[in-house]
């Protein structure tokens, strides 16, 4: 499923790289630990987290993730936005908590990392 479709169905607000929503999301992963994401997320994964500092951009682009969803209404820091724009990495925000976001992604047919 294309990232743009997920953005629409979950009513996510796009904060960065709105031009890169054409990417195919192959899986989802939820974690707030950087090394955990690095170890388990695969290219094309949509990452759900509450971390908002700029290192999430480095972790996501290192792993060629499809994008990041920030939960609980948390907004990315200014440096995070700057770096994500530079890397062309989409960051979306939602007022929903992690559990809710993951549940909705799953019911859209986005699989976890088995």
């Amino acid at each position, binding site marked *: 499923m294309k990232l743009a479709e997920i953005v629409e169905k979950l009513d996510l607000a796009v904060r960065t790289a709105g031009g890169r929503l054409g990417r195919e999301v192959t899986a989802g992963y939820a974690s707030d630990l*950087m090394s955990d994401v690095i170890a388990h997320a695969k290219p094309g994964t949509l990452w759900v987290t509450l971390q908002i500092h700029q290192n999430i951009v480095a972790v996501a682009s290192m792993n060629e993730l499809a994008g990041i969803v920030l939960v609980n209404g948390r907004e990315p820091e200014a*440096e995070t936005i700057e770096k994500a724009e530079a890397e062309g990495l989409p960051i979306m925000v939602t007022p929903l908590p992690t559990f809710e976001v993951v549940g909705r992604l799953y019911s859209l047919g986005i699989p976890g990392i088995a």
Partner: protein
Amino acid sequence: MPFTKVQELVYEMKVNEVMTRSVITVDARTPMSQLREVFRDKKISGTPVVQDGKLVGIISLEDFIKWLYGREQNSVIETKMTKEVETLYDDEPLVHAVSKFDRLGFGRFAVIERQTGRLVGVITKGDIIAGVLKKLEIDYHEEEIHRYRASHIFEDIVADRTTLVFEYDVIGQDFDRGGESSSRLKRTLKRLGLDPVTVRRVAIATYEAEMNLIVFTEGGKIVARVEPGRVTMEVDDSGPGIADVEKALQPGYSTAPQWVRDLGFGAGMGLNNIQKCADHMDIVSAPGKGTHLKISILTGDEREAGRDS
């Protein structure tokens, strides 16, 4: 105003590179009524007029329409053509042609060979556009070939052994620049054309090593060596060193302070992640002295070969 590639080409290229060489000409004595066939059959809207092989004028569709509109008797081209022919020399730079088109508003110019004065071609604005585009395409193609070459750099380098060395300095506690060195190394390896799986493994291993330098040390250095078949990273810092290396290698074991954990680091998985990516990993550390970490990652072909054996 920046000097664009197109501007550069317009100065570099010559009229004879873009002009149409197969010149259709009409004789000055031809009746105007025959022009219709010439323009229609050749799909042109103007043509040079010659007499005894010499350029004497230029006749355009506009001249033809004027003649039709005037309902005059059939007359010869000579009487209706433009006689003050503006010409260009075949070896002039294109920029002269461009400025002449701008200045005079003509649709075409006859092109004359400078030495002989012979008519050798015709140039239109369309010829210039097509010529410049073609040249851009050729340049782009050469660029592509160049890029292709870069990806086979080791095949082009003539030596018994080749090693490329890249060094990165990492500043301790500088979380804002976390991942910068590893992403620069990643970009470099990509440009060298290493296979994507190797690049990813190197990037992840280097990222974890870089974050360890940032979280725990005053800073340090990452040296990446790229040679045929393998990439080796050596990561060095001057302290504080690891008290118990074996413990540090256990998944989940971490000495990171709480504020670092709050950022999502220090989960005690860094070294494990490096181990997972690496084909060989060596760690030597002494408290108060520093840590030396060596990571070897085999590239695609070597790894395949290793699996078979």
